[in-house]
């Protein structure tokens, strides 16, 4: 025997591991986020980059501080805080004061993510919840939409132009290709160019980070609902589809791992629910930004969706409904001391 063999280590398999990591997955999301960021800088100038960087740094810092304070291992290098901060900044207009970014980051990281149990245990998508709460409480500051360009011209978002219980496109609604490309649109900095968001989504699908059906089902269920409501007015429905945060949310937020159901089937229901609820909120309540509220509501329904869509175990006769198991989720509040 040429080499001495010691025979140490774990006895049972598997003895090999896949070479990807959670960080790798998160890095792919960061790469995808570069596309809408380019759009933000192009349309709204360098202030958007300042806001994004501020938001990312705040989120990482808050996460570090909170983990240090609660004597948990510090896990900022898992990059999830970076994603939250980045996403949140992209949903704000460049006219929003910097302090709204800080407040949003605090809501996202401290209130939603860590009081909700920490990584992988929070019930609600931090960025979405922060955005919804910001809108609720700080509306004049963060909905002070400006049009792209050197001069600060106050404008309205296409969704506002569309809205108010109509079933027809109003005269102020931009053409669909302008909506699609994001030219001359007011709105949150990362959400105006739908093309860039779809490229980002395509990247995530190619990298197998997100399931292609999830954004597709969100968008198609939304589109269908609006079509039916408007009596198959295709241009109206298309304008709705291309307006607001819908596509951004469908690509980056409905697909969030932590706050969506476990099985593929569950994810489909979740996506359809988000799309339909968003349509209802936009039509019935005349609530722009309905997708945010829709996602938060559907987030809360995830444990029930999980319960109803569990895989059938091999050899078991029928589908068995098990009680909600994810106790760690429930422990959220108590684990934070």
């Amino acid at each position, binding site marked *: *025997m040429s080499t001495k063999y010691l025979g140490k280590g774990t006895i049972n398999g598997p003895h090999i591991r896949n070479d990807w990591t959670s960080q790798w997955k998160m890095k792919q999301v960061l790469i995808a986020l570069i596309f809408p960021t380019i759009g933000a800088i192009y349309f709204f100038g360098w202030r958007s980059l300042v806001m994004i960087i501020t938001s990312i740094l705040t989120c990482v810092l808050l996460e570090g501080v909170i983990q240090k304070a609660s004597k948990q291992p510090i896990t900022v290098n898992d990059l999830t805080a970076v994603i939250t901060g980045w996403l949140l900044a992209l949903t704000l207009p460049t006219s929003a004061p910097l302090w709204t970014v800080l407040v949003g980051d605090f809501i996202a990281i401290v209130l939603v993510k860590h009081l909700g149990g*920490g990584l992988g245990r929070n019930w609600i998508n931090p960025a979405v919840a922060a955005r919804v709460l910001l809108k609720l409480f700080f509306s004049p500051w963060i909905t002070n939409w400006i049009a792209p360009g050197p001069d600060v011209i106050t404008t309205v978002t296409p969704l506002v132009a569309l809205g108010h219980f109509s079933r027809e496109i109003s005269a102020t609604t931009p053409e669909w290709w302008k909506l699609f490309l994001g030219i001359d649109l007011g709105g949150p900095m990362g959400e105006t160019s739908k093309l860039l968001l779809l490229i980002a989504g395509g990247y995530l699908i190619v990298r197998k980070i997100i399931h292609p059906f999830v954004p597709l089902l969100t968008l198609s269920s939304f589109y269908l609902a609006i079509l039916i409501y408007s009596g198959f007015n295709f241009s109206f429905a298309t304008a709705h589809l291309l307006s607001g945060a819908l596509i951004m949310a469908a690509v980056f937020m409905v697909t969030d791992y932590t706050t969506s159901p476990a099985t593929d089937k569950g994810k489909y229901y979740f996506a359809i629910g988000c799309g339909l609820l968003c349509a209802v909120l936009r039509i019935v309540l005349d609530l722009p930004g309905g997708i945010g509220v829709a996602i938060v509501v559907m987030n809360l329904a995830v444990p029930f969706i999980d319960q109803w869509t569990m895989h059938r175990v091999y050899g078991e006769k029928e589908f068995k409904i098990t009680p909600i198991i994810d106790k760690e989720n429930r422990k959220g509040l108590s684990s934070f001391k």
Partner: protein
Amino acid sequence: MKMKLIVKKRLNGVYLDKNKHTAQQAIEKLTPPKKIILPMSMHLGKPAKVVVEVGDKVAIGTLIGEKDGPISANVHSSVAGVVIKIENRMVNHRSTKVVIIENDFSDRMELLRTKNKDLHNIVANAGIIGMGGAGFPTDIKLLPKEEQKIHTLIINAAECEPSITSDRRLLIEDTEQMIKSIQMILDTYQISKARIAIEKSSVQVIEHLHKHLIDPRIQLHILGDLYPQGAEKLVIKHVLSQEIPKGKLPFDVGVITLNVATIHSIFSAALKQVASFERVVTVSGTPIKEGKNLRVRIGTPVEELIDACGGFVSSPLKVLNGGPMMGKLIQSLDEPVTKTTNLILALSAAEAMIPKEQKCIKCSECVNACPIGLHPILISQAYRHQDLQTAEQLGALNCLECGACSFICPSKIDLLKDIRAVKNQIMEAKG
């Protein structure tokens, strides 16, 4: 004759690097060792009862351990020589009685004497067990209840674990014997069809079998390249789109599944009256100088196999009995090859490195990977909260221990370790 290819829907699992580096290596006969170590429990069930004493002269095929109870198997000597020691030893992490026999290199052969010429009795007498890894005594599989009509024989040639090539070599080199053996089983039990389940990546074997399969009853069933599809329960699901109800055996749904090596042993036992005393073992891995497929006497120390392959060129972190997914660590190289050893795999430190665990990000990769539809992360969480009841409700006891979940997890959580632990706890609690 053109074979009918049936490709069925995809089931859950993971894709692994196949690493079938030894696929072209013809089976070589390994020189019998100076002494063999025969464990009395190579099979699932009760260990065999030792029927020889120190000093007894034995030949190849002499009964050493006798089947003890219904779920047990005979053990025969694989060399001619003298019994020099009977002791207790750890083999494959189980304490078992072993009989050590010194080889006199005369290779005297003792043929099987079976009073009753039923195939099932011959198989029981020859000590044949499932040679794919589980080690379930084969005679039980061949003894269906009276009322049960068997409609399909599935020959499991999936070899879905990486690196293993012993079964495909047997199929290529001993094709005639394999087919004869299959035909014999079909005739004995009046089964109308046989399906050879084989992965589509083993192109060479598929082409070879196409040329040789003339009997219309025997057909190929091409599987994907998924792991784990070679597990008995899964191979049945792949081939027949049918599941075995919980607590039942394959013959309860009219199926007999046999591994390639097992069929080969049945041929030797039924037509040559030879007991199960040797098998083909693949030796592979980056630290090994030259990977080979070796025909080895049962009980040969692992060290002899590695030496026959030129020894190690670099220092291995682990040497495994079996594949990288379900194989077990070999603690010392004087452990013997058993009837279920299909692969000796050496892994370098880089290959066998297990990274540090991180927090779950709920990506549901494990849920999509589990071949039997469990939610591994939920079972793991239940275990970590010591909630045995929930773990059982989640079907922890059904786990096949294939390791797909631990393998795929991007946060490197050893889910299978938790599931194994919780299974043991549940079984203990039940008594």
